[in-house]
């Protein structure tokens, strides 16, 4: 049985009449990377702010490494590394000065501080900008300064609000690799808008909407909820589409069929299984071979996380549009 480091029970936060977080319960064990997914305003950041003690919950409780956030906040904070949304840092300081300040606050003696800073700098690749004021750094470096600050004391619990926001693809890859590398020793929560990130780093994901958990599972489980799970897509010439669609309908277990024109010459036809657990790919392949359909490509869909996300969340129409 793995060690549970974060326990949250019925956590709730209201601002005036508005319920930002409405009774969240979950736990995170050592070795897990939990992803918070949800539209803007779903309550992801508010939940993180409560766990780190920046906001006081209206109701409910949470324990970090066994310490209650309601009565032992300083101990809780000792055990957490936190990257707040937007990675705020003192702009007039250099990353070197800033990390030294964090090390001092965290109670490191000079020698130990040097080592901790060097470690965090190496992991986040900040060597080249250590002596430049943070204000003058690019978004990617600022974010990495924030991450370095959070991991400096090698905390058992790491909470990061959009750790890869504003990074270029290479930097995103580096940060994800860093998170994965640390995952074994820690309980990690990250929030993200980027669905592929969930598949890349998270061992489990919560989809949060209007302050409630609407889905909880491994990325694979969430993807399996997609309509596209086990569907088969064929890319065919436009002229052959009607014939092929007819043929697909006759396959046992086939349900809906959708058709998307890719360009003037070709179409993409997707056949969905009636029962999500039916594997259609074999049957489709056999039929297509038997009937000598001229097919450009044929593949089974694993499922689409963005589609699951859209079907489960409702709170912000603009955000849903952006995700597709």
């Amino acid at each position, binding site marked *: 049985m793995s060690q549970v480091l974060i326990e949250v029970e019925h956590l709730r936060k209201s601002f005036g009449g508005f319920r930002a977080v409405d009774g969240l319960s979950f736990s995170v064990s050592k070795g897990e990377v939990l992803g918070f997914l949800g539209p803007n305003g779903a309550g992801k950041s508010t939940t993180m702010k409560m766990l780190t003690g920046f906001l*006081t919950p209206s109701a409910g409780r949470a324990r970090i490494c066994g310490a209650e956030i309601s009565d032992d906040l300083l101990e809780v904070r000792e055990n957490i590394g936190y990257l707040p949304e937007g990675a705020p840092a003192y702009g007039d300081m250099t990353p070197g000065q800033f990390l030294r300040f964090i090390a001092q606050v965290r109670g490191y003696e000079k020698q130990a501080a040097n080592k901790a800073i060097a470690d965090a700098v190496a992991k986040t690749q900040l060597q080249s900008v250590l002596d430049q004021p943070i204000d003058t750094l690019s978004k990617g470096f600022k974010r990495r300064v924030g991450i370095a600050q959070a991991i400096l004391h090698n905390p058992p619990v790491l909470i990061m609000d959009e750790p890869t926001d504003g990074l270029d693809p290479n930097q995103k890859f580096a940060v994800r690799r860093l998170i994965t590398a640390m995952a074994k020793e820690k309980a990690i929560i990250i929030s993200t808008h980027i669905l592929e990130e969930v598949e890349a780093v998270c061992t489990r994901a919560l989809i949060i909407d209007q302050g409630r958990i609407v889905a909880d599972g491994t990325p694979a489980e969430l993807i399996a909820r997609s309509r596209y799970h086990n569907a088969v897509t064929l890319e065919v010439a436009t002229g052959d589409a009607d014939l092929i669609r007819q043929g697909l309908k006759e396959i046992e277990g086939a349900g809906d069929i959708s058709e998307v024109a890719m360009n003037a010459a070709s179409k993409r036809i997707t056949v969905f299984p009636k029962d999500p657990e039916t594997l259609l790919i074999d049957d489709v392949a056999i039929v297509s071979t038997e009937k000598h359909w001229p097919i450009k490509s044929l593949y089974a869909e694993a499922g689409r996380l963005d589609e699951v996300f859209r079907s489960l969340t409702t709170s912000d129409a603009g955000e849903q549009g952006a995700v597709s």
Partner: protein
Amino acid sequence: MKQMIAVLRRELVGYFATPLAYVFIVLFLFSMGAFTFYVGNFYEAGNADLSSFFGFHPWLYLFFIPAISMRLWAEEQKSGTIELLMTLPIPLWSMVTGKFLAAWAFTGLALFLTFPIWLTVNYLGDPDNGVIFASYIGSFFMAGGYLAIGSCLSALTRNQVIAFVLSVVICFLFTVSGLPLVLDFFSSWAPKILVTTIASFSFMTHFEAIMDGVIDLRDIVFFITLISLWLTVNAIVLDQKKAG
């Protein structure tokens, strides 16, 4: 304690990281000189003392101190670093005291740099240096009082301009509450005890007592109590923000 020193040092480094601190000190010294020599008629008075210098301190602090204190918490809230600071394992009182002491030390430095005026008066005449020393101490404590007010009000808002204006107004009330202008307004109808209470809150009353060369413990206690009270309220304001 360690954390308080870390906060204090960070804050002090912050002052000198930008030209702001240097601009402030130059302007402060310039104004001090201008008021002492031109408005206070330091030479014409012909007295070997610094009363024309210290007399202006409350009025200059009224604008200079809020300019220092306005950024203490407002800037943290504006830039979001407050979330970073408040989620580090630092006791609230350490943050409040650390920041306050940094601002106070900075003010102390500015005040210390007025020493040429002390050299001048010693060169020109034979002043009572005990009185001057006492006045410096008094001025320093008074500056602490203004700073504590400013720090607390800075926690109320994320806008530095609002923090500045609020601080000037509240500091003004604490400055003038001992002047006849204010007391006459109350004395016609209010009970005497209320009038003396209002007067006793005046920075001027306490500072002028010290300027006479007598460091009465009560005057120092007044400023220390006032600083503690405002810093306590400061911490309460910050704590309340957690409720959202």
